[in-house]
């Protein structure tokens, strides 16, 4: 039995220990916001937070996160950084096809939770592992700065 805490809710699951966390989230917990992109931690579409750390769920065996706190895109709005990032993303009209954006948003929120005033270099270092084929990168950069501003003003855009 694997015990997971996802978005504040406890789940006891009878599943193989090697199944990647991504598929447990998508298929067992029916949270489809976390996306499959590459299966080898090359694109970041599957990014979730494990105890606050941005983690590629496609290469994370579910047994390795048993008992840890997992946040997915569906639960991100509960955090200050998460809300700021989602607001900023909409304000900058970041998404295009949108498929990678759950991962982008999760990665950005994790960055801002640790570093509330990231420089462009910090953003490059944190977000270059998240691919976007629509090329929304320029807006992602702007939106991270905007989110930092929102957080600095106590959540107001």
């Amino acid at each position, binding site marked *: 039995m694997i015990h997971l805490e996802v978005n504040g809710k406890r789940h006891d699951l009878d599943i*193989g220990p090697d*199944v*990647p966390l991504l*598929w447990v989230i*998508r*298929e*067992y917990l*029916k*949270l*489809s*916001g*976390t*996306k*499959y*992109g*590459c*299966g*080898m931690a*090359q*694109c970041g*579409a599957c990014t979730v937070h494990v105890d606050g750390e941005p983690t590629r769920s496609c290469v994370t065996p579910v047994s390795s996160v048993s008992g840890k706190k997992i946040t*997915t*895109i*569906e639960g*991100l*709005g509960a955090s200050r950084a998460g809300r700021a*990032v*989602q607001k900023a*993303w*909409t*304000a900058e*009209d*970041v*998404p*295009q*096809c*949108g*498929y*990678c*954006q*759950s991962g982008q*948003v999760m990665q950005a929120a994790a960055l801002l939770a640790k570093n509330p005033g990231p420089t462009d270099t910090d*953003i*490059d*270092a944190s*977000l*270059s*592992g*998240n*691919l*976007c*084929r*629509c*090329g*929304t*990168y*320029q*807006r*992602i*950069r702007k939106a991270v700065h905007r989110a930092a501003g929102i957080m600095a003003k106590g959540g107001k855009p």
Partner: protein
Amino acid sequence: MKGIVNISRRDFLKTGAAISGGLILGLHLNLPESVNAAAQQTPPLVPNAFIRIGSDDTVTIIVNHSEMGQGVYTSLPMLVAEELEADWTKIRVESAPVDPVYNHTAFGMQMTGGSTSVWSEYDRLRKVGAAAREMLIAAAAETWKVNKKGCRAEKGVVIHTSGKKLRYGQVADKAAAMPVPAEIKLKDPGKYKIIGRPTRRLDSPEKVNGRAMFGIDASVAGMLTAVIAHPPVFGGKVRSLNADKARAVAGVKDVVHAPSGVAVLATGFWSARTGRDALEIVWDENPNAKLSTSGMREQYAALARTPGAVARKEGDPEAALAKAAKRLSVEYEVPYLAHATMEPLNCTVDLKPDSCEIWVGTQFQTVDRNAAAGIAGLKPEQVRIHTMYLGGGFGRRANPASDFVSEAVHVAKAARVPVKVIWTREDDMRGGYYRPMWYDRIEAALDEKGDPLAWKHTIVGQSIVAGTPFEKVLVKNGIDNTSVEGAADLPYAIPNVIVDLHSPAIGVPVLWWRSVGHSHTAFVVESLIDELAHEAKKDPYEYRRGLLAKHPRHLGVLRLAAEKAGWGKALPPGRALGIAVHESFGSYVAQVAEVSVSPMGEVRVHKVVCAVDCGMFVNPETIKAQMESAIAFGLSATLHSEITLEGGQVQQSNFHDYKVLRLNEMPEVEVHIVRNTEKPGGIGEPGVPPVAPAVCNAVFMLTGKRVRRLPVRPEDVKQT
């Protein structure tokens, strides 16, 4: 929810079908022809098919084009809302079912592609909105028993001169029964309140909170997930199969054959993939196993030295070349490219004896529906397609062969269970339907003043439409227009021109890839013009201007981009500018790239200034976003991406060996939009073609090395 059109929506589905008379395969990718075709067969005006107004005043726009990032779930509703006098905050969007009433106004089938969505709906959706507005006004007038001339509509409310008001939601039911007005007067563009204003995307909120539903997110009760073993060589067939180990994997429920391979069905993706990888398959011997990129290069290079089918000829290029003062003979090449959409291909099918429901991100609804019906043994009307959000399209989800949809229907049919087929990234990368590999040979001649005298351009590459139902319409006199677009319509003033084409048949499936033929022709043409300018010892920008005197829209964007980029200004050491201009899909784009090259030959693009003239436009925010997107997409192909074959097998598999642009490589992009009253042009693709030549022309300025093959290889440009 009650609606203007709730009940009659079923009626229109019948009516629409009757009026349109089924599928018309009249596809024209050539813009002016398309516009003519559209004018000749004006589709019936059925406002009820496109608008549903709820009693809560929400206005649902049923959008017949697929949203794949290009913004049509915002720009197309803007067209309706403008004439409907709707309250923009009440607009919702729903994807259209498949029905002739939703056919593309120029192509006679339901589809999204060719950067056509906005211009092809520009008139129809405004008329739809205006007709619905008039029906709402008529309904309010009837309710009040007043003359409708005393009524007007504003922000979702009908207002009478007496001051009486009725919200759209209050009169929607009655409006649905009103006759569709025969005469519709559209607004003067000067009075637009929504069209032309920067408008935020309607789909952003659900794309940042995980709620947006893509094809891969579809779910049906009792469904199994399938992963398919495809042949390692294109066209391969199973000779023998041992599925014992696959069936032993926990969660695997079934193994079935499909024409495209062997499917393993399981309770979830991981079991299905593990099972698929455990299949023991012996594939047949296949002539495609001899294919290699190096072999194809030799074949193409030899073909490029022989005359092909002539796409354009003016003057006597051979004679002019023979007596020219200066002559240049060069060869350019670009590789196969995968679309590599972020969402790997997938399709969910629920097949029953008398119906087939499909959930899929597709650009080709009519084609996919008909293919599914054929496989299922059903009538097309018995097949229902739910168009989900597309996690990228770029042309891959518009396949005349319906590969990923057909295969899923085959699997559902064989397994007798609802099924979601998911392609792994590796399956997607190796699954073919690439942008063709191209090889171009150009001979050009200059006169004593440095002006071009002759231009002989031979293009070698596979036809995208050969062997598809589109061949009859799109191939004329041996020329697939998508192979020569952007080259045969070379705009520069050159007296002697020949452009010819070889279309070798190769066993690698090919397909349109964002900007199609232009993705290679602009690289060749705009690089070569740059080469000629340098040969002539002239400034590349001024040289182009001199040769484009008869093309004001090219000139307009060229000048705008050059001015905004500060063409000719002093730059930091180690930086240079490159320029390119190209027309495609009815729009004109010029770009100036600011570039540096490291001593090891790594190219870095710092900034791209982009000027675009797409005629009258709907949402300037979309235009900016699409230019940024196209530049990133084009830069991936310029700097990184390449599909190669050896022994018939694709050598790349995932994003570690098929590299695409990452955030740290994204240049600053500045977009300038020309305002005019020209016909609306496309916007999803035209930003791609100029990027590669603009960057490579800058690389030449810096290094003196001319990039003639993509992606740019450090060894080709490093300082020795």
